[in-house]
C-alpha cells in the first residue's frame, strides 16, 4: 500500500467536509439540507475507502502472502521471536519436522486444516474460547495454543506421549479426564480424524502474524 493511515484519515475527513460544503452552498449549517448532504457524502466516502482497503487487505491476508501462513506450515517447526524494530513478537517458521510423523502435501494440508476449521465451528469453540482474541471468555485464547509451554511441561508427561501433536490430540479427546484447573473443558467427542484436523488448524493459526497479540506470549514464567 502506498499510503499511510494518516494520509487516508486526513483525506477521508477532508473530502467529506469539502464536498459537503460545496454541495451545500447557499444553505446555512443549521439547515436540514446541509446535514442531509453531510450524511450522504460521509457515508459514501467512508464506504468507498472501506471497499478499497478490503481489496488491499484481501490480497495481503491470502495464505502465503506474508501475514497468514501457507497450509504446509504444519510440516514445520513454529516459534515466536522478538522483533526489536517492531517491538513485538513475530512468528517464525523453522525447519521441516513433519506432522504426526508425516509430511503433508499442499492439498492434503489444506484438506486437513479445512476439516479442523469446520470442526471448530461445528463444536462451537468460540462460545467458550477466544480465537484471535474474539469469542467468549470462559476458556483460554487459542491463538497461540500450539505454542503453549504446558504441552511439553505437563500434558506430555501426564499422558506419556512423545510429541506435542500427540499430546494435543489425546488431551482434546479427553479433556474431562485431565483437567488442569477448576474449569473443565467438556468431552466434545472428536473422532481421530477431527482431533488431528483441529491440531493442524491450531498449529497453522499459531503462525499468523497478529501484530504481536497476545503480547509477550509465554515469555513470563
Amino acid at each position, binding site marked *: 500500500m502506498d499510503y499511510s*493511515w494518516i494520509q487516508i484519515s486526513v483525506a477521508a475527513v477532508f473530502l467529506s467536509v469539502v464536498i459537503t460544503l460545496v454541495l451545500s452552498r447557499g444553505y446555512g449549517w443549521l*439547515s436540514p439540507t446541509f446535514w442531509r448532504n453531510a450524511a450522504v457524502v460521509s457515508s459514501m466516502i*467512508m464506504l468507498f475507502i472501506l471497499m478499497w482497503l478490503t481489496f488491499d487487505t484481501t490480497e495481503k*491476508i491470502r495464505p502465503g502472502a506474508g501475514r497468514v501462513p501457507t497450509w504446509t506450515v504444519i510440516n514445520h517447526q513454529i516459534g515466536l521471536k522478538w522483533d526489536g524494530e517492531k517491538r513485538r513478537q513475530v512468528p517464525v517458521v523453522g525447519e521441516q519436522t513433519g506432522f504426526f510423523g508425516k509430511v503433508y502435501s499442499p492439498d492434503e494440508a489444506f484438506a486437513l486444516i479445512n476439516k479442523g476449521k469446520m470442526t471448530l*465451528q461445528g463444536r462451537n469453540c468460540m462460545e467458550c474460547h477466544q480465537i484471535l482474541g474474539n469469542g*467468549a471468555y*470462559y476458556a483460554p485464547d487459542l491463538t497461540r495454543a500450539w505454542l503453549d509451554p504446558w504441552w511439553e511441561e505437563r500434558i506430555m508427561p501426564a499422558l506419556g506421549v512423545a510429541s506435542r501433536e500427540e499430546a494435543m490430540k489425546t488431551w482434546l479427546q479427553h479433556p474431562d479426564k485431565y483437567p488442569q484447573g477448576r474449569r473443565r473443558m467438556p468431552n466434545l467427542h472428536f473422532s481421530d480424524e*477431527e482431533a488431528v484436523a483441529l491440531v493442524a488448524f491450531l498449529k497453522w493459526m499459531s503462525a499468523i*502474524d497478529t501484530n504481536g497479540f497476545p503480547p509477550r506470549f*509465554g515469555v513470563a514464567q
Partner: protein
Amino acid sequence: MNAFALRQPKELFESQKLALWYFAVAVLLFGVQIIFGLLMAYQYIDPEFLYGKLSFMTNRTLHVNAMIVWLLVGLMGGVYWFLPLETGREVVGIKLAKFIWWVIVAGVGVVVLVYAFVQVGPGNAYTLWFINEGREYVEAPRWADFAIVAWVAIFLFNVIATTLAARRITGLLGVLIFDLVALGALYTAGMHYTVNVTMDQYLWWWVVHLWVEATWEVLVGVVMGWSLMYLLGTPRKLIETWLFLEVALVFGTGILGLGHHYFWIGTPEYWIGLGGFFSALEPLPLVAMVVHAVYDSGAHRLHTVNRPALFWAIAQAFGNFIGAGVWGFMQTLPQINMYSHGTQLAAAHGHFSFFGAYVGTVLTLVYIAVQNARKRVVVPLDSRLWPWAYGFLIFSIIGVVASFTISGFAQTMIERAELGSTWNAYITSYTHPWYTNTHWWRFWMGMLFLGAYVALVWDLLTIGRKPAAAVEAAHD
C-alpha cells in the same frame, strides 16, 4: 396530545397489530436471554453445574442469539408501529409481512430447540447448514440465514412500497430505507464459510460491528425520532436535522471505526492507526444524541403523554453514550486494546452498550404500543410499578457491568500483561480473588435483574388498565 400522537386512529392499523406480536415475542425472548445468562453466571461459580449436559457454550449461544433476535424484532416492530402513522396509510404487503413473521417465529423455535438439544455437530458442511455455524452472535445455521434474508427483504419491501404508495418521502423514511438496504446487505457478508480464519473474522465483523455500531444505531435514530415526536411533540424539522447529523457522524466514524477489530486478527498494520483514529471518534454522535434528548425533554419540562416511555428514552440516550461511548472508548485505542482484547472488559462494554442503546429503545417502543393497545387510551400513561422495574433493571445491569469491568481488568493485568496469555496465565488469572469475587456479585445482580424483568412484564400487562384519575385520550 400533540399533532403526531393525534395521527393515531382509534382502531389500530393492521401493521400495528402485527407490531404487537413483534413486541410480545421480543419481551418473551428477553426472558429467555436472562435465564441463559444466569445459567452461565452460575457456571462461573460452579463449573460442574450442568457440565456436559448444558455446557457453557450452549448457554452462551442461546444468551447472545436470543438477544440479537429480540432486539432486532423489537426495532422492526417499532417500524411496523410507526410506518402507518408516518405515511398516513396501511402498510402495503401486510399479508406477506404476517406470513413471513409466522415463518420466522416457527424458524426461531426450531433453531432454539436445535441449539438446546442437538447443541453441536460433526465437523462438516451439514452441521453448518442445519445445526450451528459456530460463529459467535451469528450461529444461526445457513438455512436460517436465508430465512432471515427473506424476512428483511419483505420488511424492506413493506417500507418502500408503503412510502411509494403514500407518494411522500420524509427525511425519516429516506434514512430508514437507506439504512435497511445496508443492514440487509451486511447480513449476507456473514453467510460465507472460509477456512482462512483471518478472512473469516474480517467479514464476521462486517455483520457484528457494522450492525451494532452503524446500521442499528441509525435505525434507533429513526425510531427514537418518531418516539420523541410522539412523546413530546418535537417538531419534525428539528428531529430530521438531528437525524441527518447523527447519520453523518455515525457512518462517518463507524464505517472505518470497524478497524478497531482489525488490530490483531492478522490484517495489515495500517488498520491499527485507522481503526484507532476513527473508532475514537465514534462517541461523538452518541454525545449528540444525549444533547438532543436532554434538550427536548427539558424544553417540555418532562410533560409527556407516556411517562415510562419517556424515561426509557432518556435512559437510552445516556446508556448509549456511557455503555457504547465511554466503555467502548476505554478499550478502543490499540495501545490499550493490545492488553484488554479478548477479556471480560469487552463483556462489560457489551452488556452496557446493548442494554443502553437497544434495550432502552425497544422498551420505549413497547410502552408506546402498550398505551395504544388497550380499549381506552390513557393519557398520560403512568403506573406505580414501572419506576421500580425501570430503576432495578438499570441498577442491576450496572452491577453486572461493574463485575465484568473488574474481572476484565484483573484479566487484562494478570493474564495478558503480566503472564503472557498462556494456559497457566489463564488459570492464575481466573483463580485470583479479584476475579473470583465478581462471580457471586454478578450472579446476584443477575437475579435482581430477573426480578426487575418480572416486574416489567407485570407492568406491561397491567399498566393503563385502571385509569383511576387519568384523563381520557383526546380521541376516545
